[in-house]
Structure formats: C-alpha cells, structure tokens
C-alpha cells in the first residue's frame, strides 16, 4: 500500500502548487493532514454506516447506494484533507500575522499584534494525539473576533504565543 498512499499524496500536490505558486506563506505542520483526515472520517462514519445498512436491507439493486456513497466518502476523507491542508498557511512578520485558508472560498486575514486582546493556545484530543496545537488570537472586532490558526506544532505554537505576547507587552509600555 505505500505505493498507493504515495500516489494519493503525490497527485494533488501539482494541483495545489498552482494555488501556492509564488506564495510566501509558511505551510502548516504535516501532521495537520492526519488531523483533518481523522475529523473527516468521524464526520463520514454515520453516512458509511447508513449506506451499509441500506445495502444489507437490499431495497435497491446491489451496489447502487454503497458504491457512490463510499466513493464520495473516500474522496472526502483521503483527497480533500490534502487540498485543504495545502490551501492553508500563515505568514508572521514583525508586527502582524497573516492567516490564509479555503479552497473554493479563499480567506486571507491580517491582524496587527497591536490589536490583539489576548491569545489562546488550544489542543483538542485529536490534535494532542498528533502533537499539534491551535493558536487563537482574539481581537475587539465584531467581525473576526477570533482568528484561528490550526495545525501548528506544540512547541511552535507556544513559541509564537510568547513572541506575540512579548511584542504586545513591549508596545504597550
């Protein structure tokens, strides 16, 4: 199976490199793909079970339900997370953070550190398993009151928080 896995990783890269061409963004931690996959799998599980039950009941011709559903779920679990992962990225400068995400609907947010009210580093159970953290910057704005940057290594997230905190503290003097 490593061949197949490699192929699955390989194909979308070309697709994604178009999006990222000339990009100055820092990519997220490679484990982020696994987190996204696991989340997608948890989302897909009830649908897979339902499709399986329909198949066993046998109301419709053999394979009429389970084949398209499983194909769709496989796409959702295997391929989509890779694209989503490569569509995300961040860029940290001396006085601001830029967070980019989205495949179809792109969002590109910049927040100056001077407008950050407080900073959270959160870790869900799945993230913790893969050694990842999510950095959340809170602003006073009604829109984008919290800017979420997932898929950072634990140490990286903590270091970023400390760096931003220090910048805020020194600016507030």
């Amino acid at each position, binding site marked *: 199976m490593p061949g197949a896995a490699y192929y699955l990783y390989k194909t979308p890269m070309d697709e994604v490199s178009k999006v990222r061409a000339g990009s100055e963004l820092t990519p997220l931690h490679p484990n982020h793909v696994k987190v996204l996959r696991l989340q997608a799998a948890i989302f897909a599980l009830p649908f897979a079970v339902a499709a399986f039950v329909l198949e066993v009941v046998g109301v419709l011709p053999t394979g009429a339900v389970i084949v398209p559903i499983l194909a769709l779920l496989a796409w959702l679990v295997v391929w989509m997370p890779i694209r989503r992962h490569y569509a995300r990225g961040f860029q940290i400068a001396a006085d601001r953070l830029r967070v980019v995400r989205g495949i179809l*609907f792109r969002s590109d947010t*910049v927040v100056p550190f001077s*407008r950050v*009210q407080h900073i959270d580093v959160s870790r869900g159970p799945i993230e913790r398993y893969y050694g990842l953290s999510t950095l959340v910057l809170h602003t*006073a*704005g009604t829109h984008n009151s919290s800017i979420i940057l997932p898929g950072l290594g634990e140490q990286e997230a903590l270091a970023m928080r400390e760096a931003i905190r220090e910048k805020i503290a020194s*600016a507030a003097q």
Partner: protein
Amino acid sequence: MNEALLPADEPKRTDPRGFVVMALTAMLRGGLPAFAGLVGTGAIGMGLIVLLPAMAALLSISMGVAWLKWRHLTYTTGHDSIRVERGLLSRHARAVPYDRIQDVGLEQKLLPRLFGLAEVKFETGAGGKDELSLTYLSLEEADRLRELVKERKSLDVTPEVAPEGVVPDGSAAPVLFAMDNRRVMTFGLFEFSLVIFAVLLGAAQQFDFLLPFDPWNWERWAEFATSHRHDFDWLGATGRFGAVLAVVFGFLAVAGAGVLTGVARTFAREYGFTLERTAKGFRRRRGLFTRTDVVMPVHRVQALKIATGALRRRFGWHGLSFVSLAQDAKAANHAVVPFAQMDEIAPVVEAAGFELPDNGVAWHRASRRYRIDSVIRSIVAFGVPATAAAGIALLLSGGNAVSTSATAIGLALLGFVLAVRHWFVWRHTRHALDGPQLFVQHGWLAPRLDIASQVKIQSVEIVQGPIARHRGYAGIKFGLAGGTLEMHGVPLEEACGIRQAVIDSAAAVDFSALPR
C-alpha cells in the same frame, strides 16, 4: 468632593420602593392576561367570589417574590470594583472593576419613573447580554453611582483633555443637537409603519374567541352587508362604484393607522431629544414614557454611520449613529442625531473626532467585472427557476397551469428587478482611503455612508469566492469593534493595497495607546 463620593464600604440594598414597582410590574404582566382569560372564557360569570380571592392571592405571591428578591440582593461599592451579590438558594456574586465599566446608563420606565426610581446599567462591553444592572435605585443614588464610577475611572486613567468650549459636568453643557416637537412630528411622518396593520390582523386572529361573532365567517359578513344595504344609501354609492369607494376608504384607513403609529412611536422614543457634549463624552437624553439618559465617551466611538431613506432623502433628512461596543436598546448603534439636515450633523461628526468627506476625496468604485457578474448572478438565480416553472406550466392544464405560470412570471420579474438594482447600485457604491479615515458609501435609493478611523480597525480579511478568484476581484471585511464594515468587488491588487495601508496605520499604534 471626593469625600462625599467615598462610599461607606458596606453592602447596600436597592431602593425599597423598587420592590413595590417590581411587584406591580409582575402583577401587570401576569394579572392582566389572566383577567382577560377569565373574561374571555366566561369564568367571570362565576362572580367576584372566585375572582377577588384569586387576584388577592396573585398580588400577595408577586409581592412575596419581589420582596425576597429585593431582600437578597446587595451591592457594594468597593475601592476598585463594584460587587453585586444576589440569590436566595443559589448565590451569585459578581465583581466588575471600575476600569472595565465603559458606560453607566440610566433608564426610567414609566412605572419606576412615577416612583422617582431608575434602573442603572453598567456596560462593560461584554456583548450586551451579560451586563450588570441594578433595579431600582433612587435617582440621587443612581447619579451618585454614576459620578463614583467616573471618578474612580479617572483616578488611574489620565483624564480626557476637554476640548475648548466644553464645560465640566454639572454645569450646563453645550447642546450639540436637540429636536423640538415639530421636528419629532416631521420625523414621525417619515416613520410610516405598516406593522400596526399586521398587529391588528394578528390580534384579531388571536383573540377572536373573545368576540361575540366569528370574524372569519365570510358568509355572515355577506349576509350582514346585504341586510344592511340601505344603511349605506346616504353615500349615493351603489354597485361597483360603492365597492371601489369601500376599497379606497379601506386603504386610507390603513394608511392613516400607519402614519399615526409612526408618529406615536417616534414621539414615545424621541420626545425631548437632547445631545450634549459633556466633559465625559456625549450625553443623550430622550423618551416620553421611558426616559433614557446615556453617556458615551468620545474615545469609544469606533465609526460613524450616516443613513437616510428613499423618501426623506428628497427633503435632505439624514440620521447619524455611532458604532461602539456598547449596545443601545436593541440596536447595535447609538443614534445620536436621528433626523436632521447635513449641516446639523456636521458639528457632531466633528465633535466625535471624524471628518465628513469633502470634494477632494478620491473615490473608487468596485470592479466593472463585479457589476456584470452580480447582474448575471441575479438573472441566473431567478431565471433558471422561472424557466423551469414555465416549462412545468406548459405540461399542466387548468388552474395549476395558471398558478405555475404566475410563479414563473413572478420569479422572472424579481430576477429582472434585482438585476436592474445591481446595475444601478454599482454606480452609487464607492469607497475611499482618505488620510486617517476610511469611507464606504453604499445603497442606491437610500444611500448610507460609513466613516471609520483606520487606527481603530482590528483586523482585515480579504475574501474571494470561486467567481471572484477567476475574475480577479475580492471582498474586504474589516474587524470593527461593535459593527461591520465591508467593501465588495474591489480589484484584488487594490484590495491588497487598502489592507496594507490600513494595517500599517493600525500596527503603528498600540491598542492601549489608542485615545481612551
């Protein structure tokens, strides 16, 4: 002065008259519907023997509950915070530091006002729902608390330098804007409302069981009309002409009710409107039955919105409101000049530290591609279902065909109207970066102007859907404390430029260094 303000540092209760007001309010709220229900179901026939003890029980229960609530609520004005403890079975204690209190608002509803009481609200910018409020305090105590919070706040915050011509609190502050009864009347005429019609219909439907006849029985009405035909003879109107006359009268009645409600509601809300510039900020007082008194510090004004209506615009009437974290009744923005000519609005804009756009402003419009795409989008969004409905109508026959074709025509018309609107609204939608400010103007028949200060922008997001990416334009969403500010269909490069400029000016000034 400070001596007088220093509180005895022990827990206090709210004004004892407050519990009478609370009991009365609870009784009115619970008692009136109960009474109406008794009357409606005919239970009143049982006589006062049942009714009187029931009312007495209701009264004593609400008195009891109100008394317990009053007894178990205490507030303490400490050195650096105000603490409120309440609850009999489960105790709640909350401490709010004076630093965090942004506004102290007084509200006097009709009933407490008769007793000389006020509700005191402490706004902390927590989002409106979870704010601290004390019901009810005597007016003197409310004023004392307000002064106390102001004093305590200014102990650790450098006092705001009062601009020239501004007199400290207590003495007469300059009035920036006020509305006399004539102005309120004019305002009310433009606040024409059809809501009353819906309410009347709804009430008729809700309470029809109280009426001695069934209002929804059309046959009875027809019967009534036929039997009373001669009562209308004096009109000299017969047959078709009479019917037309009836419809015209009906419309006039509804329109009259709409105008009347508009005027009445506006009077209730805006009566005696006064906006003053005190040392601590803008002070607004208004209201006929519920008198409100709100102070908004100048630094808390994040952005301005100047709005108008399709009709009132023809007469030059505009309204100005402040965007801030604090909530104003149900609205997110504080109406500071609800109804005025632009030359009356200009001084208030200036007092808030903003500037109206002058002739030198370099306005930009959205991308032409965005205009075309929005027109196409509304045509497709309504054209496709309209075509589908038309196709189905061809397959059907009789009444179904007629109703389906009507749907198709309706959809097509709606799509056409939206497309035309998008085509014209593009011309009237524009934005500009001008010095330290940011202008966004939108709307065709009722244009609105948003004025924001670049340093008070919290974050900038550039969003692109699939079409926008393909066509090279983007939307910009600005993070504004207490409001929204957006631009649509801006060419991507220009959008990046705007973001760069705004973030550069915001990053240069730390949040804590913003004027506050």
